[in-house]
């Protein structure tokens, strides 16, 4: 199969869905001529025009508000917020409006929109351009949250997200944009709420999200040299969350390590740990559930400090050794 990058996979999903469904359009800052801050939408303007690849002023609240209004009246907007840090500016629209309209109106309205946004540290962009805020939307009933780690998943999950009749927060990762992987040319969807086992193993389950999946896989390679066989589970969507696949894996291995880049406190790792602890896997645990996450600090600018703020391969290796040895 041909290999393309994560960014190309997202672009291909957008292109194919815009060709298939004229209700789909893009809006956000610098999507058009500029091609998006990370080049994801580059070239789509030429193909679809300014109406459907719509550059907006720097007005995050109105971008999301407009996407909701358009979704409510028959369109299927895909909005982009340039950095996930800036969803905070649009939280009123997202949380109080988009997420709740359907329920508040007795199930008689639908809000089919996707909000794409890149998260993550590692680019030296410091505290206001590096956050992973996925726990925020996960906490809001009415929103779905998707976090792909591979080009294949990015395309299939984005197509499924655009076709979903609910507001979906589609969290991309800046460091994943240039990663490559096999992606079918044809149109395909990956259902939201289905985890994927990225590597099978019998000694330890690592549940990792987004970029951390890649680091967990690298760690698993190293650990395999030592005879530790790691199973890597990628939830792919945080809401809905596939607790069944996670629990089944933990029941097999008896050990669970949760890895995410966002801050530890109040992060999705706490929720995942709870799902394991209160579920059928509890009786199978041979060690306490362990979480490895970003430090509870803003992302620092300095390269070395930034590196030590979020989990790296060696941290995962070390945590896994402790769990298996302990």
């Amino acid at each position, binding site marked *: 199969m041909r290999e393309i990058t994560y960014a190309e996979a997202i672009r291909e999903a957008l292109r194919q869905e815009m060709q298939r469904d004229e209700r789909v359009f893009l809006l956000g800052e610098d999507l058009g001529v500029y091609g998006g801050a990370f080049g994801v939408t580059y070239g789509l303007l030429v193909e679809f025009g300014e109406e459907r690849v719509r550059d907006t002023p720097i007005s995050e609240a109105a971008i999301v508000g407009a996407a909701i209004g358009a979704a409510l009246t028959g369109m299927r907007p895909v909005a982009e917020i340039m950095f996930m840090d800036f969803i905070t500016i649009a939280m009123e629209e997202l949380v109080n409006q988009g997420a709740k309209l359907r329920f508040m109106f007795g199930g008689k309205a639908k809000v089919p929109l996707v909000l794409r946004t890149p998260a993550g540290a590692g680019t030296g962009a410091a505290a206001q351009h590096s956050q992973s805020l996925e726990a925020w939307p996960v906490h809001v009933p009415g929103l779905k949250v998707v976090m792909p780690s591979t080009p294949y998943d990015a395309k299939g999950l984005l197509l499924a997200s655009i076709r979903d009749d*609910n507001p979906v927060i589609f969290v991309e990762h800046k460091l994943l944009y240039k990663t490559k992987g096999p992606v079918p040319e044809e149109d395909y969807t990956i259902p939201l709420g289905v985890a994927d086992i990225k590597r099978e193993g019998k000694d330890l389950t690592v549940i990792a999200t987004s970029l951390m999946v890649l680091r967990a896989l690298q760690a698993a390679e190293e650990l395999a040299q030592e005879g530790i066989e790691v199973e890597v589970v990628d939830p792919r969507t945080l809401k809905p969350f596939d607790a069944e696949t996670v629990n089944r894996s933990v029941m097999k291995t008896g050990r669970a390590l949760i890895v995410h880049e966002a801050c530890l406190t109040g992060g999705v790792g706490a929720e995942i740990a709870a799902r394991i602890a209160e579920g059928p896997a509890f009786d199978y645990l041979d060690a306490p559930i362990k979480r490895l996450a970003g430090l509870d600090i803003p992302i620092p600018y300095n390269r070395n400090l930034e590196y030590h703020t979020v989990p790296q391969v060696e941290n995962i290796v070390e945590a896994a050794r402790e769990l298996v040895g302990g």
Partner: protein
Amino acid sequence: MLSESKLKEMLHQMYLIRTFEEKADELYALGKVHGTMHLSIGQEATAVGAIGALRPKDYILSTHRGHGHCIAKGADVKIMMAEFMGKETGYCRGRGGSMHIADMEGGNLGANGVVGGGIGMAVGAGLSIKMRGTGQVILCFFGDGAANRGIFHEALNMAAIWTLPVVYLCENNQYGMSMSVVRAFSIKDIADRAAAYNMPGVVVDGNDVLAVYEATLEAVERARGGGGPSLIEGKTYRWKGHSKSDQERYRTKGEVEAWKERCPILRFRARLIGERVIDEAEANRMAEEARRLVEEAVAFAEASPEPSVETILEGVYAP
């Protein structure tokens, strides 16, 4: 010039709104309503005048003080009252209540609990109308308080640069809860802010239903014809407190009484009688008809079932 039947319909709607809200107030006092409510008594002319300028397929976005908008857009007061009383037969199956009544089929995209909550969505509805080429217009209501939120500026700018068919109608009832417009604005007229977005800004007597109608019609026709958005400010006054917790320490009885002298319903009634569109007897019959409809609505709502707890999870996500 408006037809006699349209003029009569407008007066009927104003009576219906007033009567609905007086009944709502009464039901609250009797402990039959859960939660709070925001009454628009005294502001009926902005709702009826503005929505009177729309076509049936046009959209509105309403506010927390939205009973009048909902009725003027053609809602069934029985279903509204059922929602108000939290019943399964209500517009939102009892999940929304007074602050969230929506009637998607009737083009009412919803009242909103957040001040200015509809202003951003209006941009999207306008964009959707334009992209689908349906020739509709979106009329977005908001209050004076909402005009000081950031989204007001973001959204009006966006509607203007994209020439969207949006009519922004500010019901300036003089207070955002207790904060008077005199204290909250450095300008006298909120409509002046239209200049910043290069769109027409018009001030109108919000207690004169025909003045509101005419100003809105001009804006609606401009929007429908591709001329882009407008901002209309209707100066009006809410007779009742902000919500049920209001002790009204921020204004005098004299001020309230002075505005009651300018009752939009009595003014319009006197005008229609003066112009011989109706006579006293017909006006009285209209008021009586409104009472009958509201009593019917209460009976319907009281007889309606409560939502069943087994359905509590329904409606969070679309299938």
